[in-house]
């Protein structure tokens, strides 16, 4: 689905990502981790074709991502950004319906089928009661749910999420990822930039850690959620212990003066 080879890219003369290799197959959930400013969002932009690689290639279904015509590309991948703003009072349903744009013919409006898809997506994320509310009257988290519904009804096999759930409360986060997991079983793939390491370890099949623009670690959660790796990347003391029910590794942070008070090490 996605093949990235020797990717270097950035903005103008500033190179943000260096020598990235990554491939994403159908039906997997990939978590992108790393500290602020490490280049996670830039990677999402490169995959989505908005940003052109300076060197190397990003192939989306065998063709460089930035060369796809916009409409065809939007049928292959959908993207939810970390911050959305609606400057005009569209209703939630209208905002979600925009996800169907790539499926409509030029100059033609949205069909009944598109409308049904949009309504179904709103229902899926539990926002159907809001369908006629103007989006700009919603809270940040609710707006984010609308954006997620929009991406779902775009019906693309690949979803890119750039900290899309960061502003959601814990129940909504879990609900959204459960929904994604279900969609994943139907063959869709996800690439999610995440700051919540524990959520990432619970839901992702593959974790990719980016540090200062380079690949710091890549592998299944059990390998990547290593105190040595995470302390090195985040520069914070971490403790890794298995989840009491699921057994997946979970991270615990402690204040930076803990070392002097007793020391921290791996419990796994």
């Amino acid at each position, binding site marked *: 689905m996605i093949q990235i080879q020797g990717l270097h890219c950035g903005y103008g003369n500033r190179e943000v990502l260096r020598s990235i290799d990554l491939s994403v197959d159908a039906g997997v959930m990939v978590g992108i981790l790393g500290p602020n400013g490490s280049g996670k969002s830039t990677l999402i932009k490169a995959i*989505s074709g*908005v940003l052109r690689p300076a060197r190397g290639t990003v192939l989306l279904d065998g063709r460089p991502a930035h060369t796809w*015509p*916009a*409409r*065809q*590309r*939007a*049928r292959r*991948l*959908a*993207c939810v*950004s970390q911050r*959305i*703003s*609606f*400057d*005009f*009072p*569209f*209703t939630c349903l*209208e905002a979600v319906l*925009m*996800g169907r*744009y*790539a499926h*409509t013919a030029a*100059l033609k*409006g949205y069909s009944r089928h598109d409308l049904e898809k949009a309504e179904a997506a709103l229902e899926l994320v539990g926002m159907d009661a809001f369908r006629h509310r*103007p989006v*700009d009257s919603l809270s940040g988290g609710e707006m984010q749910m609308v954006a997620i519904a*929009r991406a779902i009804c*775009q019906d693309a096999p690949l979803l890119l999420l750039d900290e899309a759930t960061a502003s959601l409360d814990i129940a909504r986060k879990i609900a959204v990822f459960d929904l994604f997991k279900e969609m994943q079983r139907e063959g869709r793939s996800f690439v999610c930039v995440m700051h919540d390491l524990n959520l990432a370890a619970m839901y992702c099949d593959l974790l990719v850690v980016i540090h200062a623009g380079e690949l710091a670690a890549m592998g299944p959660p059990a390998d990547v959620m290593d105190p040595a790796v995470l302390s090195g990347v985040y520069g914070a003391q971490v403790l890794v212990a298995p989840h009491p029910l699921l057994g997946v590794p979970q991270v615990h942070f402690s204040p930076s003066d803990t070392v002097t008070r007793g020391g921290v090490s791996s419990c796994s």
Partner: protein
Amino acid sequence: MLLLVFLSLFSVVAALWFGRTHLSAQEILQGLLLGLSGPGGSDHPLKVIVFDLRLSRVLISFVCGGALATAGAAFQGLLRNPLADPFTIGVASGAAFGASVAIFFGLSGTGFLGLGLLPVAAFIGALATLAAVIALTKLGGGLGKESLILAGIIAATFLSALISLLKSLDEESVSNIVFWIMGSFQGRGWGHLLFALPYMAAGLAMVGAFARELDLLALGDEEAMYLGVDVPRARFFLLIGASLLTAATVAVSGIIGFVGLVFPHMVRMIWGARHTRLLFFSFFVGGTALLWSDVAAKTILPQGEELPVGVITALFGGPFFFAIMRIQGGKWRGP
């Protein structure tokens, strides 16, 4: 929707009543029929007053108002700024400069295709400014909203300086330039309408064809791209379309403020933000509003002198906009 179209049609007919000469309904009907029966043949005074003078002026004020409101709605979406209007990117300043040059060189009376050279000069000025603004945005990295607004401000500032220069060089032309800039339909007729109509039709078609893209562009360029919009292409056609509407309007009417700012707002408040509806309704609401503003401009002074219609729209538009701001409340307080 039908009601709106009907109201506009009704306004066009009803506005024929108002003018310096008082006419009965029968006389108006007679004048209309005379005008419709043969092209320009009859010199019957009723035909001249009703058909040649009044109907043409009513229609021209209607399409100009419609074009301004539609262009305003398009620019507000394109620039993602509820305070944008058709004049934000400097096209109108270009028209004003073109007109000023024509007035300065005393060419305003020169005949050209049956109408004065003034609208032609204004139109050329507007298009040249549009081309300059687009060229300027290339330096700023494309047709993004920031570079468009900046390039527009550069153009508008520079051109208004040039207009001031022309005014100071020739004091005789000052009042003509000022009067033209204030905007008026006085003395405008079929020639002006026929001159502006093809460009307006082209502009409406372009903006209308990209109405759905305008919805998505309102989310931001990157979002629109993710959703499948060919952003540079959509922005280009919308910019050209909305600018054509503005240029054609300003060329025949001068600069009429507030119509392109206020009515898109009003329509958005009543009928929502979707641009397919917004553009269509703005056209009819803006057209009807400007038509009646022009009637007011013709009749409001007791001695029968005319006010520039730009004065009327500004007079009503200011408080109107204030009311909209009150209703919309804190929404514009920024992020």
